[in-house]
């Protein structure tokens, strides 16, 4: 058990957990930031996607000891009141069915559009390939990423 000081969504937190605790579980069980979801624990489904220094990463494989001094953003910190253009596009298209994977989808999409604000259809499909939607709302996810790209430009 060690004490870790981490910066999440611009706020400083101090937690006492084992060194190997994945960021996912620190967020969920220790810091009550429940928007980041557990889906597979092996980096295969993307439900736990967060940003580390603006880059999308799967938090289920990322030990807390490796993110010290880095800037963590979760779905809760993406915007005030869901006003990020990607969140707005998600709402406009009414993407979710069950909704469980959507925070991870949105985090992947935002980091991707940051780097590539005007992606082609194939680039979108490639970028979102790591996120599973079990309800298969894929068509709307694709549309929402395209819409967000439009809104951003």
């Amino acid at each position: 058990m060690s004490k870790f000081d981490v910066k999440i969504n611009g706020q400083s937190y101090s937690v006492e957990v084992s060194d190997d605790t994945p960021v996912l579980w620190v967020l969920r069980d220790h810091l009550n930031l429940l928007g980041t979801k557990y889906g597979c624990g092996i980096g295969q489904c993307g439900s736990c996607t967060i940003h580390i220094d603006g880059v999308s990463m799967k938090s289920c494989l990322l030990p807390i000891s490796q993110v010290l001094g880095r800037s963590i953003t979760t779905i809760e910190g993406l915007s005030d009141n869901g006003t990020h253009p990607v969140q707005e596009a998600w709402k406009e298209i009414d993407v979710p069915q069950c909704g469980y994977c959507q925070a991870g989808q949105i985090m992947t999409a935002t980091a991707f559009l940051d780097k590539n604000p005007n992606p082609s259809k194939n680039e979108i499909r490639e970028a979102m390939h790591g996120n599973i939607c079990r309800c298969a709302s894929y068509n709307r996810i694709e549309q929402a990423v395209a819409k967000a790209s439009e809104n951003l430009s």
Partner: protein
Amino acid sequence: MSKIKSTIDRRSFLKVSGLTGGGLIIGFNFFTACKPEAVPAIDISQLNFHDFNGFIKIADNGMVTIFAPNPEIGQGVKTSMPMIIAEELDVEWKNVFVVQGGLDTDVFERQVAGGSQSIRHGWDPLRQTGATARQMLVNAAAAKWGVDASECTSENGVIFNNKGEELGYGDVVNEAALLEVPKDVQLKDPKDYKIIGQNVKNVDIDKIITGKPLFGIDYKRDGMVYASVLRPPAFGQKLESFDASQAKAMEGVIEVFQFGDKVAVLATSNWEAMRAKKTIKANWIIDTNLESTKDHDKILLGLLNGKEFKTLRSDGNVKKAFADADQILERTYESPFLPHNCLEPMNFFANVTDEKVELVGPIQTPKWTADRISKKLERKIEDITLEMTRMGGGFGRRLYGDFALEAAEISNISRKPVQVVFSREDDMADGIYRMAIKYRISAAIKNNKVVGYHLKEAAVNSGMYDLIPNFFPAGSIENYQVDSATYKSNITTGAWRAPYTNFLSFAEQSFFDELAETMGIDRVQLRLDLLQNVKGTTDEKIQYSAERMEAVIHKAVDKSNWGKVKEGVYQGFSAYYCHNTHVAEVVDVKLESGVPVIEKVTCVIDCGVIVNPLGALNQVEGGVIDGIGHAMYGNLDFKDGVPQSTNFDTYRLIRMKETPSLVETHFIESDVAPTGLGEPALPPAGAALANAIKAATGVRLLKQPFITNQEIFGLKKV
């Protein structure tokens, strides 16, 4: 307006006035207002449909809260069911708050999400409930004005009389609470609908996109501990002994104990619980037998070759038809076990104390689950409360409540508030799977007509439910027989999105394609010809409507440009009826380096009135892609009782790049009462794809998952 006799009486339409802060709460048991038929698609005969509750709360300021009555698993009923009430209540949707029913009541009787039946069964009672509440408010206003209620009208939450006076609903709610429940209420003419038929966004959309805690797994309680459960790794094993000394010494671990054939690890966090569980050394011994997929394959084929069948429907004389046939076509179709893989793993919260049993979590069958927990813990049903959370998918898995029972047992033993959380591995390895099934279909052809049809089913554990033999092509072929045989396995199986039809549709609709080819008839025409034989049938057992099926087929032909697509595009057709809904689908594929790639899916659906087109489209697109995904990739093998895939590195679910990015959906415009939509788009998709692949490659797929077919997919990595 159509005047209808309300079946709502005082008993099923209870009112409680004097809400804190003013206003009226109207409670209703909407399923006693319109008793539903038994739902056939899943085995829920044990479930009680009679105690369904919902609530409308009208505040002094006229704002309306509708407590959505049914569990939300992503099928959209938390949005669409309140829409139906709001329509007849005649209020503006923007003035309606929707809350999941039951969260603040100690009445635990609840509802069911299953069989795509929520809207179908809710249609009449939900409309009657809204209309009854509206009429009571109008009556209260009329009494206040001293005029006859028939001289009053309502619009968007305001009541008008013919003198031009007006009163808001909020102005008369308290008076309305004192009135008798009207016997006759008027339902709106569909042409006057202002909410039904509009695109309404998911009521939880803002919470979902901002990551608010909504799901069972997000539930927290002071003092709550997390439980990870070690279960037998193989079906057919039981626990002999275990050594948890290492686990007990680990950080965060509170206690470790055995319950039944399982071991519970309680810890202060999920990570600590899951991590400690891995260190437990358990000895498992064989309890029954350890089964493998290769055994099942042999056993099911043996059943198909044998004579031990239960005949589910028999018309004419199939034996004679086959004996007299000019030509016989026979094919065998094979499907594997499938896990549900809800993205939110199974989980449940329980807090068992001397006073009460509190349960919170994602469950499709809250009532049944509470009943079972009452029995298991020997506690009075009155002691139990159950709160439903939003569910991260259901697909049938959350009908079973085994995870809730575990939580209750663990909390009962530890006397702590406990949340049981399945790891993904637990979720996939301790499933209640779609069973492996094989179908053998034969057709007798005489004078180039289909004169005989024989469907044989061989299924692990349980075969098709009794309505299915009356789906298409029942009634269209003179000599027709459906037989079923089952093999009892210790691998647990159950309902999986569109039970049985999820694979039967693939078998039959692939068969019709090949049958048409064998007979040299157009593939669509064969189906249309057969449907002619069903028109005017007096057989009340026949479930589908030939006219409605014909209509979706014609529209699919039209909208998909059937047979007229550009060179290099190959089409596959499929049409199916299930969950009271008629669907036709066309898949367009092209070949990329010889491998079929889906370009587009056209889907035509007749599900009656569309309550929320925005949500409906999402269900159809999801259903089609889910159907394609599982037909292409879904597969769970067993070896010596052990599931061979336990996470998404070895179990393949469809992902973005593999999806057709265009699923074009067309609904048949209709004012017929709505039918199921959560499931019916899935079953036809696999056959439409297989038929398109046949057109493109000449290879006929008879077995799921398709990806294992080397001839078509070659060395493409699974």
